[in-house]
Protein backbone atom coordinates (compact mmCIF):
# COMPACT_ATOMS: atom_id res chain seq x y z
CA UNK A 1 0.00 0.00 0.00
CA UNK A 2 2.40 2.63 1.09
CA UNK A 3 5.93 2.91 -0.10
CA UNK A 4 8.33 0.46 1.41
CA UNK A 5 11.68 -0.67 0.30
CA UNK A 6 11.25 -3.27 -2.38
CA UNK A 7 12.66 -6.23 -0.50
CA UNK A 8 10.35 -5.69 2.44
CA UNK A 9 7.23 -5.55 0.31
CA UNK A 10 8.29 -8.66 -1.60
CA UNK A 11 8.85 -10.53 1.63
CA UNK A 12 5.73 -9.26 3.32
CA UNK A 13 3.15 -11.74 1.93
CA UNK A 14 5.44 -14.61 2.85
CA UNK A 15 5.91 -13.22 6.33
CA UNK A 16 2.16 -12.85 6.71
CA UNK A 17 1.47 -16.43 5.71
CA UNK A 18 4.49 -17.82 7.53
CA UNK A 19 2.72 -18.80 10.77
CA UNK A 20 0.11 -20.81 8.90
CA UNK A 21 2.72 -22.24 6.58
CA UNK A 22 4.90 -23.42 9.45
CA UNK A 23 1.95 -25.01 11.18
CA UNK A 24 0.85 -26.78 8.03
CA UNK A 25 4.27 -28.17 7.30
CA UNK A 26 4.82 -29.24 10.89
CA UNK A 27 1.42 -30.60 11.85
CA UNK A 28 -0.09 -31.53 8.50
CA UNK A 29 2.54 -32.46 5.91
CA UNK A 30 4.84 -34.35 8.26
CA UNK A 31 2.08 -36.54 9.75
CA UNK A 32 0.77 -37.37 6.26
CA UNK A 33 4.26 -38.29 5.10
CA UNK A 34 4.72 -40.40 8.22
CA UNK A 35 1.54 -42.29 7.44
CA UNK A 36 2.66 -42.78 3.87
CA UNK A 37 5.94 -44.25 5.09
CA UNK A 38 4.20 -46.30 7.76
CA UNK A 39 2.09 -47.96 5.10
CA UNK A 40 5.24 -49.61 3.75
CA UNK A 41 6.27 -51.00 7.13
CA UNK A 42 5.25 -54.47 8.24
CA UNK A 43 3.46 -55.76 11.28
CA UNK A 44 4.35 -58.97 13.01
CA UNK A 45 2.88 -59.67 16.41
CA UNK A 46 5.40 -62.41 17.13
CA UNK A 47 8.35 -60.17 16.44
CA UNK A 48 7.21 -57.27 18.55
CA UNK A 49 4.75 -55.35 16.39
CA UNK A 50 5.72 -52.76 13.79
CA UNK A 51 8.89 -53.38 11.78
CA UNK A 52 10.26 -50.53 9.74
CA UNK A 53 11.49 -51.15 6.23
CA UNK A 54 10.02 -51.06 2.80
CA UNK A 55 7.50 -53.60 1.66
CA UNK A 56 4.39 -53.57 -0.45
CA UNK A 57 2.91 -56.31 1.71
CA UNK A 58 0.09 -54.17 3.11
CA UNK A 59 -0.97 -52.95 -0.30
CA UNK A 60 -0.91 -56.42 -1.82
CA UNK A 61 -2.95 -57.65 1.12
CA UNK A 62 -5.57 -54.95 0.76
CA UNK A 63 -5.71 -55.17 -3.02
CA UNK A 64 -5.86 -58.96 -3.20
CA UNK A 65 -7.97 -59.95 -0.22
CA UNK A 66 -11.62 -60.34 -1.08
CA UNK A 67 -12.49 -59.24 2.47
CA UNK A 68 -11.11 -55.80 1.69
CA UNK A 69 -12.59 -55.81 -1.80
CA UNK A 70 -15.99 -56.22 -0.25
CA UNK A 71 -15.39 -53.32 2.11
CA UNK A 72 -14.18 -50.99 -0.62
CA UNK A 73 -17.04 -52.01 -2.87
CA UNK A 74 -19.57 -51.49 -0.08
CA UNK A 75 -18.17 -48.05 0.64
CA UNK A 76 -18.37 -47.16 -3.03
CA UNK A 77 -21.95 -48.39 -3.42
CA UNK A 78 -22.95 -46.62 -0.22
CA UNK A 79 -21.44 -43.36 -1.51
CA UNK A 80 -23.24 -43.66 -4.83
CA UNK A 81 -26.58 -44.40 -3.19
CA UNK A 82 -26.28 -41.54 -0.71
CA UNK A 83 -25.23 -39.14 -3.47
CA UNK A 84 -28.12 -40.15 -5.72
CA UNK A 85 -30.68 -39.71 -2.96
CA UNK A 86 -29.18 -36.39 -1.93
CA UNK A 87 -29.45 -35.15 -5.52
CA UNK A 88 -33.00 -36.44 -5.96
CA UNK A 89 -34.25 -34.94 -2.70
CA UNK A 90 -31.95 -31.99 -2.14
CA UNK A 91 -32.25 -30.35 -5.56
CA UNK A 92 -36.05 -30.03 -5.55
CA UNK A 93 -35.97 -28.91 -1.94
CA UNK A 94 -33.51 -26.14 -2.77
CA UNK A 95 -35.71 -25.04 -5.65
CA UNK A 96 -38.80 -25.04 -3.44
CA UNK A 97 -36.92 -22.93 -0.89
CA UNK A 98 -35.91 -20.59 -3.67
CA UNK A 99 -39.55 -19.99 -4.56
CA UNK A 100 -40.68 -19.35 -1.00
CA UNK A 101 -41.48 -16.02 0.56
CA UNK A 102 -38.47 -14.81 2.46
CA UNK A 103 -39.98 -15.37 5.89
CA UNK A 104 -40.80 -19.02 5.31
CA UNK A 105 -37.55 -19.45 3.49
CA UNK A 106 -35.47 -18.43 6.48
CA UNK A 107 -37.47 -20.66 8.82
CA UNK A 108 -37.05 -23.66 6.55
CA UNK A 109 -33.38 -22.86 6.05
CA UNK A 110 -32.87 -22.95 9.80
CA UNK A 111 -34.51 -26.37 9.98
CA UNK A 112 -32.38 -27.74 7.17
CA UNK A 113 -29.04 -26.14 7.96
CA UNK A 114 -29.37 -26.15 11.74
CA UNK A 115 -28.59 -29.88 12.02
CA UNK A 116 -25.20 -29.17 10.43
CA UNK A 117 -24.23 -27.43 13.64
CA UNK A 118 -25.09 -30.50 15.71
CA UNK A 119 -22.45 -33.16 16.08
CA UNK A 120 -22.85 -36.08 13.72
CA UNK A 121 -22.78 -38.36 16.76
CA UNK A 122 -25.95 -36.77 18.07
CA UNK A 123 -27.69 -36.93 14.72
CA UNK A 124 -26.76 -40.57 14.33
CA UNK A 125 -28.02 -41.29 17.81
CA UNK A 126 -31.39 -39.92 16.72
CA UNK A 127 -31.53 -42.44 13.90
CA UNK A 128 -30.38 -45.25 16.15
CA UNK A 129 -33.28 -44.46 18.49
CA UNK A 130 -35.69 -44.29 15.56
CA UNK A 131 -34.67 -47.36 13.58
CA UNK A 132 -33.40 -49.78 16.25
CA UNK A 133 -35.18 -53.17 16.40
CA UNK A 134 -37.09 -51.93 19.43
CA UNK A 135 -36.76 -48.40 18.12
CA UNK A 136 -39.64 -45.99 17.84
CA UNK A 137 -40.54 -46.71 14.23
CA UNK A 138 -40.80 -50.44 14.81
CA UNK A 139 -42.61 -50.11 18.13
CA UNK A 140 -45.13 -47.69 16.70
CA UNK A 141 -45.78 -49.80 13.62
CA UNK A 142 -46.17 -52.94 15.75
CA UNK A 143 -48.41 -51.21 18.25
CA UNK A 144 -50.58 -50.07 15.37
CA UNK A 145 -50.62 -53.66 14.16
CA UNK A 146 -49.20 -52.69 10.78
CA UNK A 147 -46.35 -55.17 11.04
CA UNK A 148 -45.92 -58.40 12.95
CA UNK A 149 -42.22 -58.39 13.43
CA UNK A 150 -39.67 -55.53 13.47
CA UNK A 151 -38.38 -54.30 10.12
CA UNK A 152 -34.65 -54.67 10.06
CA UNK A 153 -33.09 -51.24 9.58
CA UNK A 154 -30.33 -51.16 12.16
CA UNK A 155 -27.15 -52.73 10.76
CA UNK A 156 -28.54 -52.66 7.22
CA UNK A 157 -27.56 -50.72 4.15
CA UNK A 158 -31.02 -49.14 4.09
CA UNK A 159 -30.67 -47.72 7.58
CA UNK A 160 -27.18 -46.48 6.82
CA UNK A 161 -28.26 -44.77 3.62
CA UNK A 162 -31.18 -43.06 5.38
CA UNK A 163 -28.99 -41.71 8.17
CA UNK A 164 -26.16 -40.61 5.88
CA UNK A 165 -28.58 -38.84 3.55
CA UNK A 166 -29.86 -37.01 6.59
CA UNK A 167 -26.35 -36.11 7.69
CA UNK A 168 -25.13 -34.91 4.30
CA UNK A 169 -28.15 -33.55 2.44
CA UNK A 170 -27.75 -30.04 3.90
CA UNK A 171 -24.56 -29.71 1.85
CA UNK A 172 -26.51 -30.59 -1.27
CA UNK A 173 -29.28 -28.09 -0.53
CA UNK A 174 -26.71 -25.43 0.29
CA UNK A 175 -24.76 -25.99 -2.88
CA UNK A 176 -27.81 -25.89 -5.17
CA UNK A 177 -29.16 -22.97 -3.20
CA UNK A 178 -25.97 -21.03 -3.84
CA UNK A 179 -26.31 -21.73 -7.56
CA UNK A 180 -29.95 -20.64 -7.53
CA UNK A 181 -28.99 -17.38 -5.88
CA UNK A 182 -26.90 -16.52 -8.90
CA UNK A 183 -29.83 -17.17 -11.20
CA UNK A 184 -31.25 -13.98 -12.62
CA UNK A 185 -34.88 -13.97 -11.44
CA UNK A 186 -35.90 -12.30 -14.68
CA UNK A 187 -34.64 -15.24 -16.70
CA UNK A 188 -37.48 -17.44 -15.52
CA UNK A 189 -40.05 -14.77 -16.24
CA UNK A 190 -38.48 -14.18 -19.61
CA UNK A 191 -38.76 -17.88 -20.40
CA UNK A 192 -42.42 -17.89 -19.46
CA UNK A 193 -43.16 -14.73 -21.37
CA UNK A 194 -41.76 -16.48 -24.42
CA UNK A 195 -44.48 -19.09 -24.00
CA UNK A 196 -42.65 -21.88 -22.19
CA UNK A 197 -44.61 -23.91 -19.64
CA UNK A 198 -43.41 -24.00 -16.03
CA UNK A 199 -41.99 -27.44 -16.53
CA UNK A 200 -40.13 -26.44 -19.66
CA UNK A 201 -38.71 -23.40 -17.91
CA UNK A 202 -37.53 -25.65 -15.12
CA UNK A 203 -35.96 -28.20 -17.41
CA UNK A 204 -34.53 -25.96 -20.09
CA UNK A 205 -33.63 -22.81 -18.19
CA UNK A 206 -33.28 -23.44 -14.48
CA UNK A 207 -31.77 -26.91 -14.43
CA UNK A 208 -28.84 -26.23 -16.77
CA UNK A 209 -27.92 -23.15 -14.78
CA UNK A 210 -27.95 -24.86 -11.40
CA UNK A 211 -26.18 -27.95 -12.73
CA UNK A 212 -22.78 -26.75 -11.48
CA UNK A 213 -24.29 -26.45 -8.00
CA UNK A 214 -25.77 -29.95 -8.23
CA UNK A 215 -22.45 -31.35 -9.40
CA UNK A 216 -20.34 -29.69 -6.75
CA UNK A 217 -22.87 -30.69 -4.10
CA UNK A 218 -22.68 -34.30 -5.30
CA UNK A 219 -18.93 -34.21 -5.05
CA UNK A 220 -19.06 -33.02 -1.45
CA UNK A 221 -21.64 -35.63 -0.52
CA UNK A 222 -19.79 -38.42 -2.30
CA UNK A 223 -16.44 -37.60 -0.74
CA UNK A 224 -17.87 -37.19 2.74
CA UNK A 225 -19.79 -40.47 2.52
CA UNK A 226 -16.75 -42.34 1.28
CA UNK A 227 -14.82 -41.26 4.37
CA UNK A 228 -17.70 -41.19 6.86
CA UNK A 229 -16.87 -42.86 10.11
CA UNK A 230 -19.19 -42.19 13.05
CA UNK A 231 -22.48 -42.96 11.33
CA UNK A 232 -21.39 -46.25 9.70
CA UNK A 233 -19.71 -47.24 12.92
CA UNK A 234 -22.79 -46.68 15.08
CA UNK A 235 -25.45 -47.86 12.65
CA UNK A 236 -23.46 -50.46 10.71
CA UNK A 237 -21.18 -51.77 13.39
CA UNK A 238 -18.94 -54.75 12.67
CA UNK A 239 -21.48 -56.23 10.30
CA UNK A 240 -21.37 -53.40 7.76
CA UNK A 241 -17.76 -52.31 7.77
CA UNK A 242 -16.72 -49.48 5.50
CA UNK A 243 -13.22 -48.24 4.70
CA UNK A 244 -13.08 -45.74 7.54
CA UNK A 245 -14.28 -48.16 10.21
CA UNK A 246 -11.88 -50.80 8.91
CA UNK A 247 -8.93 -48.44 9.25
CA UNK A 248 -10.12 -47.61 12.74
CA UNK A 249 -10.27 -51.27 13.70
CA UNK A 250 -6.80 -51.93 12.33
CA UNK A 251 -5.42 -49.04 14.33
CA UNK A 252 -7.23 -49.32 17.62
CA UNK A 253 -8.43 -52.96 17.50
CA UNK A 254 -5.75 -55.22 16.08
CA UNK A 255 -3.07 -52.53 16.41
CA UNK A 256 -1.85 -53.29 12.88
CA UNK A 257 -0.89 -49.67 12.15
CA UNK A 258 0.93 -50.34 8.87
CA UNK A 259 -2.11 -52.06 7.38
CA UNK A 260 -4.38 -49.30 8.70
CA UNK A 261 -2.01 -46.74 7.18
CA UNK A 262 -2.16 -48.50 3.81
CA UNK A 263 -5.96 -48.41 3.90
CA UNK A 264 -5.84 -44.73 4.84
CA UNK A 265 -3.42 -43.94 2.02
CA UNK A 266 -5.65 -45.75 -0.48
CA UNK A 267 -8.69 -43.86 0.79
CA UNK A 268 -6.83 -40.57 0.50
CA UNK A 269 -5.62 -41.33 -3.02
CA UNK A 270 -9.08 -42.41 -4.15
CA UNK A 271 -10.52 -39.25 -2.61
CA UNK A 272 -8.02 -36.94 -4.31
CA UNK A 273 -8.35 -38.78 -7.60
CA UNK A 274 -12.13 -38.50 -7.58
CA UNK A 275 -12.18 -34.87 -6.49
CA UNK A 276 -9.61 -33.66 -9.01
CA UNK A 277 -10.96 -35.62 -11.96
CA UNK A 278 -14.50 -34.57 -11.13
CA UNK A 279 -13.43 -30.94 -10.88
CA UNK A 280 -11.64 -31.24 -14.21
CA UNK A 281 -14.78 -32.68 -15.71
CA UNK A 282 -16.96 -29.88 -14.32
CA UNK A 283 -14.49 -27.24 -15.43
CA UNK A 284 -14.38 -28.63 -18.93
CA UNK A 285 -18.11 -28.99 -19.15
CA UNK A 286 -18.94 -25.61 -17.73
CA UNK A 287 -15.90 -23.68 -18.84
CA UNK A 288 -18.00 -21.27 -20.89
CA UNK A 289 -20.57 -20.77 -18.17
CA UNK A 290 -17.92 -19.68 -15.69
CA UNK A 291 -16.23 -17.21 -18.00
Amino acid at each position, binding site marked *: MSQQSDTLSTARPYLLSAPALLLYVGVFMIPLIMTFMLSFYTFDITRGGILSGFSLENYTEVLSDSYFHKIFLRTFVLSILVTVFCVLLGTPEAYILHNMSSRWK*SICMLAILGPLLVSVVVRTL*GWAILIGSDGLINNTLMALGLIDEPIKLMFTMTGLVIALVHVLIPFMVLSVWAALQKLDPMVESAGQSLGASSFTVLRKIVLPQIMPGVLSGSLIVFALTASAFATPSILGGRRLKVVATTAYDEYLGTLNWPLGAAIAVLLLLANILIITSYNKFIERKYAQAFK
Partner: protein
Amino acid sequence: MRKNTPLALVFNALFLTFMLAPLVVICLVAFTSKGYISLPTDGFSLRWFRAILDNPHFIDAFYLSLMLGFASATIAVSIAVPASLAFARYKFTGRAAIMAFFLSPLMVPHIVLGVSFLSFLTKIGWYGSFMGLVFTHVIIIMPYALRLVLSSITGLDQSAESAAASLGASNWVVFRRVTLPMIIPGVAGGWVLSFITSFDEVTMSVFVASPSTTTLPVRMYEHITETIDPLIASLSASLIFITMIVMLILDRFYGLDKILVGKGK
Protein backbone atom coordinates in the same frame (compact mmCIF):
# COMPACT_ATOMS: atom_id res chain seq x y z
CA MET B 1 -40.80 -15.20 -7.75
CA ARG B 2 -42.97 -18.15 -8.65
CA LYS B 3 -45.42 -19.85 -6.33
CA ASN B 4 -44.82 -23.37 -5.11
CA THR B 5 -47.44 -25.90 -6.09
CA PRO B 6 -49.32 -27.80 -3.34
CA LEU B 7 -47.31 -30.87 -4.25
CA ALA B 8 -44.12 -28.90 -3.63
CA LEU B 9 -45.39 -27.78 -0.24
CA VAL B 10 -46.15 -31.38 0.75
CA PHE B 11 -42.65 -32.36 -0.36
CA ASN B 12 -41.24 -29.53 1.71
CA ALA B 13 -43.19 -30.62 4.78
CA LEU B 14 -41.98 -34.20 4.44
CA PHE B 15 -38.44 -32.99 3.90
CA LEU B 16 -38.49 -30.87 7.04
CA THR B 17 -39.97 -33.77 9.01
CA PHE B 18 -37.16 -35.97 7.79
CA MET B 19 -34.57 -33.36 8.78
CA LEU B 20 -35.98 -32.73 12.23
CA ALA B 21 -37.31 -36.18 13.20
CA PRO B 22 -34.12 -37.60 14.72
CA LEU B 23 -33.46 -34.43 16.69
CA VAL B 24 -37.02 -34.16 17.92
CA VAL B 25 -37.01 -37.80 18.94
CA ILE B 26 -33.87 -37.30 21.00
CA CYS B 27 -35.40 -34.32 22.73
CA LEU B 28 -38.55 -36.30 23.54
CA VAL B 29 -36.80 -39.42 24.75
CA ALA B 30 -34.57 -37.32 26.98
CA PHE B 31 -37.57 -36.50 29.18
CA THR B 32 -38.49 -40.10 29.91
CA SER B 33 -38.69 -41.22 33.50
CA LYS B 34 -37.94 -44.84 32.66
CA GLY B 35 -34.56 -46.49 32.71
CA TYR B 36 -34.57 -47.35 29.02
CA ILE B 37 -35.22 -45.55 25.73
CA SER B 38 -38.93 -44.73 25.52
CA LEU B 39 -41.21 -41.81 24.88
CA PRO B 40 -42.21 -39.85 28.00
CA THR B 41 -45.75 -41.26 27.94
CA ASP B 42 -46.33 -40.77 31.65
CA GLY B 43 -45.21 -37.17 32.01
CA PHE B 44 -41.99 -35.27 31.47
CA SER B 45 -39.20 -36.05 33.87
CA LEU B 46 -35.89 -34.24 34.32
CA ARG B 47 -34.35 -37.35 35.87
CA TRP B 48 -31.88 -37.94 33.07
CA PHE B 49 -30.83 -34.30 32.84
CA ARG B 50 -29.93 -34.44 36.51
CA ALA B 51 -28.03 -37.63 35.81
CA ILE B 52 -25.69 -35.76 33.46
CA LEU B 53 -24.49 -33.59 36.30
CA ASP B 54 -23.64 -36.69 38.32
CA ASN B 55 -21.48 -37.95 35.52
CA PRO B 56 -18.06 -36.28 35.71
CA HIS B 57 -17.01 -38.24 32.62
CA PHE B 58 -19.25 -36.17 30.42
CA ILE B 59 -18.84 -32.93 32.32
CA ASP B 60 -15.04 -33.10 32.05
CA ALA B 61 -15.27 -33.93 28.35
CA PHE B 62 -17.65 -31.01 27.85
CA TYR B 63 -15.22 -28.56 29.42
CA LEU B 64 -12.34 -30.03 27.48
CA SER B 65 -14.26 -29.61 24.22
CA LEU B 66 -15.15 -26.05 25.11
CA MET B 67 -11.54 -25.15 25.83
CA LEU B 68 -10.35 -27.03 22.79
CA GLY B 69 -12.81 -25.20 20.55
CA PHE B 70 -11.85 -21.90 22.11
CA ALA B 71 -8.13 -22.40 21.77
CA SER B 72 -8.13 -23.90 18.30
CA ALA B 73 -10.62 -21.39 16.85
CA THR B 74 -8.62 -18.51 18.30
CA ILE B 75 -5.32 -19.81 16.96
CA ALA B 76 -6.84 -20.64 13.58
CA VAL B 77 -8.36 -17.18 13.19
CA SER B 78 -5.26 -15.38 14.33
CA ILE B 79 -3.11 -17.08 11.73
CA ALA B 80 -5.86 -16.91 9.11
CA VAL B 81 -6.07 -13.11 9.30
CA PRO B 82 -2.47 -12.37 8.26
CA ALA B 83 -2.55 -15.16 5.68
CA SER B 84 -5.76 -13.74 4.21
CA LEU B 85 -4.21 -10.29 4.09
CA ALA B 86 -1.34 -11.75 2.09
CA PHE B 87 -3.71 -13.48 -0.35
CA ALA B 88 -6.05 -10.53 -0.73
CA ARG B 89 -3.49 -7.79 -0.99
CA TYR B 90 -0.40 -9.14 -2.68
CA LYS B 91 0.47 -10.89 -5.87
CA PHE B 92 3.38 -13.16 -5.12
CA THR B 93 5.04 -16.22 -6.52
CA GLY B 94 3.38 -19.34 -5.21
CA ARG B 95 0.25 -17.52 -4.12
CA ALA B 96 -2.15 -19.98 -5.74
CA ALA B 97 -0.14 -22.98 -4.57
CA ILE B 98 0.01 -21.79 -0.96
CA MET B 99 -3.68 -21.03 -0.99
CA ALA B 100 -4.48 -24.52 -2.32
CA PHE B 101 -2.19 -25.95 0.33
CA PHE B 102 -4.06 -24.09 3.07
CA LEU B 103 -7.39 -25.40 1.82
CA SER B 104 -6.12 -28.93 1.22
CA PRO B 105 -7.13 -30.43 4.60
CA LEU B 106 -10.64 -30.33 3.14
CA MET B 107 -9.57 -32.97 0.64
CA VAL B 108 -8.18 -35.29 3.29
CA PRO B 109 -10.71 -37.57 4.98
CA HIS B 110 -10.75 -37.03 8.73
CA ILE B 111 -10.00 -40.68 9.28
CA VAL B 112 -6.73 -40.24 7.39
CA LEU B 113 -5.90 -37.15 9.42
CA GLY B 114 -6.76 -39.12 12.54
CA VAL B 115 -4.36 -41.97 11.88
CA SER B 116 -1.64 -39.57 10.77
CA PHE B 117 -1.97 -37.36 13.82
CA LEU B 118 -1.97 -40.42 16.05
CA SER B 119 1.41 -41.62 14.72
CA PHE B 120 2.74 -38.09 14.72
CA LEU B 121 1.73 -37.20 18.27
CA THR B 122 2.94 -40.55 19.57
CA LYS B 123 6.28 -40.02 17.85
CA ILE B 124 6.90 -36.58 19.31
CA GLY B 125 5.53 -37.57 22.68
CA TRP B 126 2.52 -35.25 22.58
CA TYR B 127 -0.08 -37.98 22.58
CA GLY B 128 -2.54 -37.28 25.34
CA SER B 129 -1.53 -33.62 25.66
CA PHE B 130 -4.02 -30.81 25.30
CA MET B 131 -1.71 -28.83 23.02
CA GLY B 132 -1.44 -31.82 20.70
CA LEU B 133 -5.22 -31.88 20.38
CA VAL B 134 -5.31 -28.14 19.78
CA PHE B 135 -2.85 -28.23 16.90
CA THR B 136 -4.62 -31.09 15.15
CA HIS B 137 -7.90 -29.25 15.47
CA VAL B 138 -6.37 -26.07 14.10
CA ILE B 139 -5.45 -27.97 10.93
CA ILE B 140 -9.00 -29.24 10.57
CA ILE B 141 -10.68 -25.87 11.02
CA MET B 142 -8.16 -23.63 9.25
CA PRO B 143 -9.77 -23.96 5.82
CA TYR B 144 -13.13 -22.78 7.15
CA ALA B 145 -11.62 -19.90 9.08
CA LEU B 146 -9.49 -18.92 6.13
CA ARG B 147 -12.40 -18.87 3.70
CA LEU B 148 -14.63 -16.66 5.81
CA VAL B 149 -11.84 -14.28 6.77
CA LEU B 150 -10.57 -14.12 3.22
CA SER B 151 -13.97 -13.36 1.77
CA SER B 152 -14.47 -10.54 4.24
CA ILE B 153 -11.09 -9.05 3.36
CA THR B 154 -11.59 -9.45 -0.37
CA GLY B 155 -14.96 -7.76 -0.10
CA LEU B 156 -13.39 -4.80 1.64
CA ASP B 157 -13.18 -1.46 -0.12
CA GLN B 158 -9.45 -0.86 -0.02
CA SER B 159 -9.83 2.83 -0.64
CA ALA B 160 -10.99 3.30 2.96
CA GLU B 161 -7.53 2.20 4.01
CA SER B 162 -5.90 4.51 1.48
CA ALA B 163 -8.06 7.31 2.82
CA ALA B 164 -6.88 6.62 6.35
CA ALA B 165 -3.24 6.58 5.23
CA SER B 166 -3.67 9.86 3.40
CA LEU B 167 -5.11 11.36 6.57
CA GLY B 168 -1.86 10.59 8.32
CA ALA B 169 -2.33 7.10 9.78
CA SER B 170 0.66 4.76 9.92
CA ASN B 171 0.39 1.21 8.56
CA TRP B 172 -0.30 -0.21 11.99
CA VAL B 173 -2.91 2.44 12.83
CA VAL B 174 -4.62 1.79 9.50
CA PHE B 175 -4.81 -1.90 10.32
CA ARG B 176 -6.04 -1.41 13.87
CA ARG B 177 -8.46 1.46 13.31
CA VAL B 178 -9.80 0.73 9.83
CA THR B 179 -8.98 -2.73 8.44
CA LEU B 180 -9.64 -4.75 11.56
CA PRO B 181 -12.96 -3.14 12.56
CA MET B 182 -14.18 -3.60 9.01
CA ILE B 183 -13.30 -7.28 8.81
CA ILE B 184 -14.38 -8.09 12.36
CA PRO B 185 -17.75 -9.50 11.29
CA GLY B 186 -16.09 -11.94 8.91
CA VAL B 187 -13.44 -12.80 11.45
CA ALA B 188 -16.03 -13.42 14.15
CA GLY B 189 -18.07 -15.56 11.76
CA GLY B 190 -14.94 -17.54 10.95
CA TRP B 191 -14.24 -17.97 14.63
CA VAL B 192 -17.72 -19.25 15.40
CA LEU B 193 -17.76 -21.68 12.50
CA SER B 194 -14.29 -22.89 13.54
CA PHE B 195 -15.38 -23.30 17.12
CA ILE B 196 -18.43 -25.32 16.17
CA THR B 197 -16.48 -27.47 13.74
CA SER B 198 -13.90 -28.20 16.42
CA PHE B 199 -16.51 -28.80 19.08
CA ASP B 200 -18.40 -31.28 16.88
CA GLU B 201 -15.42 -33.12 15.39
CA VAL B 202 -15.37 -36.81 16.20
CA THR B 203 -13.73 -38.90 13.47
CA MET B 204 -10.25 -37.46 13.78
CA SER B 205 -10.49 -36.90 17.51
CA VAL B 206 -11.29 -40.56 18.15
CA PHE B 207 -7.67 -41.26 17.27
CA VAL B 208 -5.89 -38.48 19.07
CA ALA B 209 -8.01 -38.33 22.21
CA SER B 210 -6.45 -40.20 25.10
CA PRO B 211 -8.43 -41.41 28.12
CA SER B 212 -7.44 -38.27 30.00
CA THR B 213 -8.04 -35.88 27.10
CA THR B 214 -11.28 -37.03 25.56
CA THR B 215 -13.59 -34.63 23.79
CA LEU B 216 -17.32 -34.73 24.33
CA PRO B 217 -18.27 -36.16 20.93
CA VAL B 218 -15.66 -38.90 21.32
CA ARG B 219 -16.92 -39.81 24.79
CA MET B 220 -20.48 -39.86 23.46
CA TYR B 221 -19.44 -41.97 20.51
CA GLU B 222 -17.77 -44.46 22.81
CA HIS B 223 -20.80 -44.52 25.05
CA ILE B 224 -23.20 -45.09 22.15
CA THR B 225 -21.19 -47.98 20.71
CA GLU B 226 -21.66 -49.71 24.10
CA THR B 227 -25.15 -48.73 25.05
CA ILE B 228 -27.90 -46.38 24.03
CA ASP B 229 -29.62 -45.16 27.15
CA PRO B 230 -31.70 -42.14 28.20
CA LEU B 231 -28.58 -40.56 29.67
CA ILE B 232 -26.97 -40.12 26.27
CA ALA B 233 -30.29 -38.86 24.94
CA SER B 234 -30.59 -36.18 27.61
CA LEU B 235 -26.99 -35.14 27.00
CA SER B 236 -27.63 -34.93 23.26
CA ALA B 237 -30.81 -32.99 23.89
CA SER B 238 -28.87 -30.47 25.98
CA LEU B 239 -26.40 -30.04 23.14
CA ILE B 240 -29.27 -29.55 20.71
CA PHE B 241 -30.75 -26.82 22.91
CA ILE B 242 -27.43 -25.02 23.20
CA THR B 243 -26.85 -25.31 19.46
CA MET B 244 -30.30 -23.90 18.75
CA ILE B 245 -29.54 -20.80 20.75
CA VAL B 246 -26.18 -20.32 19.04
CA MET B 247 -27.83 -20.90 15.69
CA LEU B 248 -30.51 -18.30 16.25
CA ILE B 249 -27.89 -15.77 17.26
CA LEU B 250 -25.76 -16.60 14.22
CA ASP B 251 -28.71 -16.41 11.89
CA ARG B 252 -29.67 -13.07 13.31
CA PHE B 253 -26.26 -11.56 12.67
CA TYR B 254 -25.02 -13.27 9.55
CA GLY B 255 -27.61 -15.50 7.93
CA LEU B 256 -26.91 -19.17 8.43
CA ASP B 257 -26.57 -19.88 4.74
CA LYS B 258 -23.79 -17.30 4.34
CA ILE B 259 -21.70 -18.83 7.10
CA LEU B 260 -22.32 -22.42 6.13
CA VAL B 261 -21.67 -21.99 2.43
CA GLY B 262 -18.05 -21.93 3.61
CA LYS B 263 -18.50 -25.38 5.05
CA GLY B 264 -18.83 -27.15 1.72
CA LYS B 265 -15.65 -28.19 -0.03
